[in-house]
């Protein structure tokens, strides 16, 4: 029986974000929070492969109690066990402190029940950093492949997987030995529509809550704000893209194009390209 772990984060829904122009900080009130879209697809691909091979899925999420809703959404997609890591001490964590907490939790789970594949999202749409995955992979010393957009095959006997990923430069097909860590793009799997039994079970299934002290003894100065080397010095709303010049229809065609190209100094850009 293979063991997959999916790490998910609950994030504010950035499509209707409101920023307080004076203080430059996020207006949290009234902004709904959702399961990070990339993490939903990471869970979906884990669920898909669970059906193809004999596997069990554990979902972990560090955050406030309200993260339960996102864990329940993962139950709908086939997660068997849900662990919420929640305590005051964890608040305000940057990616380093987050990856530390997840690393300690994953070590504990791995010790109890060996993990074969850890699935994460490409990035969280609030922080947009995409650092937690590779950081956890580096701490575990496991092969870590990011920007995965297809799992081609999983060989149960040999503990091998073949995955595809795209970067700016290339599309590559890679064979990886378990245990491994993958961060997923949206194309990796479609979000399934749960059956009614799955939905009903997901609503009532128990979610374990791990605090600061137990069952993992975290080092205080490595978690939350204390464990975060990066601090927000100042935040501000970006000045909205000012409306540029609109060249009227009457202007002569060639002149319009030249003016536009000069405005965006195309020559320099193409220069870089040529």
């Amino acid at each position, binding site marked *: 029986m293979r063991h997959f772990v999916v790490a998910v984060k609950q994030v504010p829904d950035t499509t209707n974000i409101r920023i307080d122009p004076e203080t430059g900080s996020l207006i949290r009130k009234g902004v*709904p929070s959702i399961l990070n879209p990339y993490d939903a697809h990471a869970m979906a691909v884990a669920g898909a492969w669970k059906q193809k091979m004999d596997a069990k899925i554990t979902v972990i999420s560090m955050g406030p109690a309200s993260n339960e809703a996102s864990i329940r959404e993962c139950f709908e997609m086939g997660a068997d066990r849900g662990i919420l890591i929640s305590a005051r001490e964890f608040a305000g964590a940057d990616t380093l402190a987050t990856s530390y907490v997840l690393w300690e939790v994953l070590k504990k789970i791995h010790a109890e029940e060996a993990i074969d594949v850890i699935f994460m999202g490409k990035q969280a749409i609030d922080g947009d950093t995409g650092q937690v995955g590779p950081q956890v992979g580096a701490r575990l010393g496991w092969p870590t492949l990011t920007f995965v957009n297809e799992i081609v095959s999983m060989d149960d006997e040999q503990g091998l997987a073949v995955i595809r990923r795209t970067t700016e430069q290339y599309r590559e097909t890679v064979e990886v030995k378990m245990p491994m860590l993958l961060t997923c793009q949206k194309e990796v799997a479609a979000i399934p*529509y*749960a*059956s*009614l*039994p799955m*939905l009903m079970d997901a609503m009532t299934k128990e979610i374990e809550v791990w605090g600061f002290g137990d069952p993992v003894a975290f080092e205080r100065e490595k978690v939350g704000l204390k464990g975060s080397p990066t601090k927000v010095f100042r935040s501000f709303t970006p000045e909205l893209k000012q409306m540029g010049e609109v060249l009227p229809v009457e202007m002569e065609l060639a002149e319009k194009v030249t003016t536009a190209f000069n405005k965006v100094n195309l020559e320099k850009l193409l220069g870089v390209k040529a």
Partner: protein
Amino acid sequence: MSERRFEFDVIVVGAGIGGSAAAMVAAQKGLKVAMVERARVPGEKNYFGGAIYPHAFIDILPDFYERKPPLERPVTRAGVWMFDETGVTKIVKEGGALGETPAAEWVVLRSKFDAWWAAQAVDAGVTLIPKTVVLDFVRDDAGKIIGVQTDREDGVIYAPITIIAEGVNNLLTQKAGLAKADIKPEQCALAVKQLIQVERGDLEAFFGLHGLNDGLAVMTMGDSSQGLPGLGFIYSGASNVSIGVGITLNALVESGMSPQDILKAHLSHSVYAPLLEKGTLLEYGAHIIPEGGYRGMPTLFDDGVMVVGDAASMVNAMHFEGTNMAATAGRLAAETAFEAHQAGVYTKQQLAGYEKKLKKCFVYQDMKQYRNFIKWLDKHPHFMSVYPDFLNEVLDLFFTSHGKRKSKEYKKMLKALTRRRSLLGAVGDILSFAKAVLGL
């Protein structure tokens, strides 16, 4: 998948105002209730003017206020704004009954209120099944409804009684054989609304309100519906204002005008300028109001099924009352379901008790009283433009003096009417209006 059967005592379709009410009352009486809602969170799909009337909710939750419902403002000032092209006559009542606390009417936002109202039902023991759409009914071989089919795999839910609270798109009411067809265009209105965010200070200055316990709800008519038959509304929220216009659908279709253009034209009226300057558009939306009234109502019950709220056309368009009707009907349907479970009988005859209960309360009586109102409004489209214009003109004349002989002024006032409507016609209008409103 597992051969699990989902069995409940009652299934409620829709977690809107009527649905949550029905589910809550059934659960309060100890029944096992499943409430199926297509939205992720109840309220996400719902949109209205508007204001609720707590009397219907207190009948279900005596500690309604203690549970801290998300209310925007009490309605302490209510009235009518009659628009003509350049001016407006504001007839607004305040104090007296409107000053009593707790208020008889509260402005709310549906996305917040419905979520809270459904949560009270879950609190009472209802099983809320979100993100799920009921597609059809499951019937026994005698054709009696014994459950519903949802859009999920293995998605059948069984119960001897289903209460339909699906709102104005009455697809399931038709599938249950209670309604013959979609609501006819002449039996409903399309309402379009903008929700505008305004700093509390600016909002209160504009409407003359003092603090959060002071709120305004007015009906708008005249130029607001650009000459088409319809009524508009203004509701003051905590730091937002809802301004909308409802036009009877057949008139709208015939006019070829688009709803948002009508609303945009209305909002460009000079009276709104100081408010809109300070406001930012939060959201805009539209929703159908069933106005078929008594005549538009479907059959309300059959073997194993009842229908409540908008799906049963339970709206009093004259007074903008729909939520109190839906909540009350929901309660009465749940009480009927409880009695059926006690008797162990779920036939049409048993469920007839629902309609009996409705006939004894305001829902039925008001529907009957206003049964001709919409047809009347449709036949007298000028009513909405002639009289507001006439009134505005008369008041213009009355309140401006240019040293002319008053007797001449009064002649002008009379002409202001006769130019638009013969005296006889006007008297006829008043009488027929009274008849339509009094349900004679």
